[in-house]
């Protein structure tokens, strides 16, 4: 029997980026907020400390900061007719666990969607005709536009101290930036970080082909910076250890560094860690979530925490699973196309390549994801899709994120994988290779979705969430097109040797690809075709606000965190200025 606790004003289910942003906005408005986190507390002074964070085996190989799959995982199958099996240890994607969530170990690549992305279905119909979009492609317009979100993109940029080069400042195209981006109301808070040697070569080659290269925007401050919360960030040291690890210089943005110090000092905020939220308590009549049930993993005790406002701020899979378990919203059925919860699961369609330059010295261990150069000429509707046979696109980049020795080595295809020949090839090429990637969009498909698994359960006895996903013909064509464009640039760099990496036919959960999962609780303007309204308020429970990339109707050609942060601020603004004054649906159904 769960112990019933005293009601609080608001409870956060998950304490990553969106939990931290919402908790901060709500405590500022005078609410008492409880943050629930199933993982450990991660205080930068302990968890981000040297020399510990320089341990590639612990963080990059053994995945110290990632979700504990012994307690909870997801099941996976490529096609609806397959039997789904549990992902016993995450590989293709790596959701984080603990305070800060996936916001600790991300690389910090920080993007905005294109203005056109927000009305993609309408735009494609206008441009290419009413029959252009295949029936199986279930993409939708967002119920918010770029102008709605721009002030909140700007707010999140400033929270993070993003480094970059503006391409469109209040409508004026500025040289050196991304000319395709939506107008920015303000410049990036920090100048771009230094560009690596190989990315600079990529930029020159791209320019020679008529493209528009620019430094990748990154949530890593290039200089000491004080964010609007009054928190001082350090300077990037180009240590090459961003990915899968915390930043000891406090330069890479994380909830732990950029927001939580203020929340931890706020008496209105209470953090509870190692508590696992098992279920939302849903009052169907009142259309409210009255409480959350959780198990304290330290004691095994079960608690019921009543709350006036509930913010679902866990990862894509957890958000969707909670709705399905609580019976909030109609589960999606791919056979009929009816229902919405679990619909439009999308991934990120990354592909790329590697090039080798004999005799060059790239010092690849000096790295930071933002040392990279990108072009956006083939993203979204930045180019004409007439006659191409696909929609969507992505940015193309030459990356310079560091080359730690276990995971950051490359040798040309056909080199021995072990033995004396392997050693010679490794030494020859370690310092003079560079990698490229294409950040492809995923346009939703009728058969790619999430529901509850009928067989497998988590450590607390709940059904696992089941993911049914495979790459679509559209996305494969899109990806081959991007890789073809990339190959043209790579050739113009004149490497000794290069190879392009295309996506395999079937999606596989084994090698790492991207942690950019989206969908399942998508936002929209109609309750029949969406789970949350434009303010991320659940249509079926007015005091439930769902955050994160689970609300994306589809995945665009960018890393999602920039848009996740902007949406969190946008939603928080609606809660504090509209909902708290008059609790009820913010959009009439």
């Amino acid at each position, binding site marked *: 029997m769960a112990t019933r606790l005293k009601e609080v004003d608001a409870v956060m289910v998950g304490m990553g980026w969106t939990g931290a942003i919402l908790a901060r906005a709500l405590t500022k408005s005078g609410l008492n907020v409880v943050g629930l986190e199933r993982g450990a507390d991660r205080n930068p*002074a*302990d968890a981000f*400390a*040297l*020399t510990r964070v*320089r*341990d*590639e*085996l612990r963080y990059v*190989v053994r995945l110290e900061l990632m979700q*504990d*799959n*012994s307690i909870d*995982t997801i099941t996976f199958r*490529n096609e609806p007719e397959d039997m789904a*099996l*549990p*992902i*016993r*240890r995450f590989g293709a994607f790596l959701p984080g666990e603990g305070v800060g969530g996936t916001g600790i170990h991300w690389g910090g690549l920080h993007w905005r969607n294109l203005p056109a992305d927000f009305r993609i279905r309408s735009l494609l119909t206008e441009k290419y005709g009413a029959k252009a979009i295949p029936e199986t492609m279930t993409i939708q317009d967002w119920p918010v536009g770029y102008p709605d979100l721009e002030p909140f993109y700007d707010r999140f940029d400033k929270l993070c101290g993003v480094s970059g080069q503006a391409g469109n400042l209040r409508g004026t195209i500025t040289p050196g930036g991304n000319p395709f981006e939506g107008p920015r109301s303000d410049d990036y808070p920090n100048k771009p970080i*230094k560009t*690596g*040697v190989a990315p600079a070569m990529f930029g020159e080659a791209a320019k020679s082909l008529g493209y528009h290269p620019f430094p990748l925007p990154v949530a890593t401050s290039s200089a*000491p910076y004080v964010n609007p919360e009054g928190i*001082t960030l*350090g*300077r990037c*040291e*180009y*240590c*090459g250890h961003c990915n899968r690890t915390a930043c*000891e*210089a*406090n*330069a890479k943005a994380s909830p732990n560094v950029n927001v939580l110090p203020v929340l931890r000092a706020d008496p209105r905020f209470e953090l509870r860690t190692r508590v696992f939220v098992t279920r939302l308590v849903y009052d169907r009549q009142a259309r409210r979530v009255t409480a959350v049930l959780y198990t304290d993993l330290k004691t095994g005790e079960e608690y019921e925490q009543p709350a006036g406002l509930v913010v679902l701020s866990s990862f894509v899979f957890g958000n969707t699973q909670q709705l399905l378990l609580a019976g909030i919203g109609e589960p999606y059925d791919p056979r009929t196309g009816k229902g919405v919860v679990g619909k439009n699961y999308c991934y990120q369609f990354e592909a790329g390549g590697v090039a080798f330059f004999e*005799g060059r*010295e*790239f*010092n690849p*261990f*000096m790295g930071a994801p933002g040392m990279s150069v990108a072009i956006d000429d083939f993203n979204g509707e930045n180019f004409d899709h007439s006659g191409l046979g696909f929609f969507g696109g992505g940015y193309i980049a030459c990356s310079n994120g560091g080359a730690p*020795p*276990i995971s950051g*080595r490359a040798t040309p295809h056909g080199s021995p*994988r*072990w*033995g*004396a020949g392997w*050693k*010679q090839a*490794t*030494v020859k090429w*370690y*310092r003079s290779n560079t990698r490229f990637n294409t950040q492809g969009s995923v346009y939703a498909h009728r058969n790619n979705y999430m529901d509850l698994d009928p*067989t497998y*359960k988590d450590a607390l006895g709940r059904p696992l969430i089941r993911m049914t996903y495979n790459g679509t013909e559209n996305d494969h064509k899109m990806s081959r097109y991007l890789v073809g464009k990339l190959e043209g640039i790579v050739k113009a760099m004149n490497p000794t040797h290069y190879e392009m990496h295309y996506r395999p036919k079937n*999606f*596989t*959960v*084994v090698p790492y690809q991207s942690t950019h999962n989206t969908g399942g609780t998508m936002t929209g303007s109609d309750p029949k075709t969406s789970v949350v309204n434009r303010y991320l308020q659940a249509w079926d429970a007015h005091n439930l606000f769902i955050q994160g990339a689970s609300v994306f109707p589809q995945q665009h050609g960018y890393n999602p965190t920039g848009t996740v942060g902007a949406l969190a601020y946008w939603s928080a603004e609606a809660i504090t200025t509209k909902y708290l004054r008059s609790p009820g649906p913010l959009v009439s159904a």
Partner: protein
Amino acid sequence: MADEKVNESAAPVARRDFLLGAGTAVAAGLAPASASGTEESKAAPASVPTTEPDAFVTLTAPEAAFIVAAVDTIIPADELSPAGSECGVAVFIDRQLGSDWGGGAKVYRSGPFLKGKPEQGYQLALTPREFFSAGITAANEWTRKSYGKDFDRLSAAERAQALKAMDEGTAQFAGFGSRAFFGQLLSITMAGFFSDPIYGGNRDKVSWKMLGFPGLPAIYADKVDAYRDKRYVAEPQSIADFS
């Protein structure tokens, strides 16, 4: 490209500064405050490999013999490095298989255990420790059948040939996938050769020296531009050098 040798000891990052985060995090008051550093300059980097014999806490004697022979074949002694076991890779594997990871920590281990498609990833009930144990047994059975001896008794050329057969999946193990086994063996061997020496492999930072990887402290803000297209060389430093 010119090799520019840099004597890092001329301007070392003071140990205490490094532990406190040499960037501006110190000024921000956010840097770790619990470092037990003292003001003296750092100790000389360890330069003498351990002279104690390797002893194994997890692997049985036949398993250890297999692992030593395998890592010495995957990483043979040559002018670039000593053999894998001399670099501590066998000890590394022994300790890893005895660690939480070796025991299956953080792995979903509920049934039913069904054979899936390759796209669905590892689906066996075995922990890494159990997987290696079963794999070594199967490998030795196969070499006994094919060569008349356990793997570690084979000549160097035969061992290379046997590992190649496992790598290509042509070695027919009884009830076990030779290719999957070799994949895991290769992966843990590379981890042992290249990880920080704190785990027992990469003795004397031998692989880092081989690559030119400087290890810690990795503070390069003032070096990125100074070493554009110029080789940056520093005596590698490991976690233990700052402990």
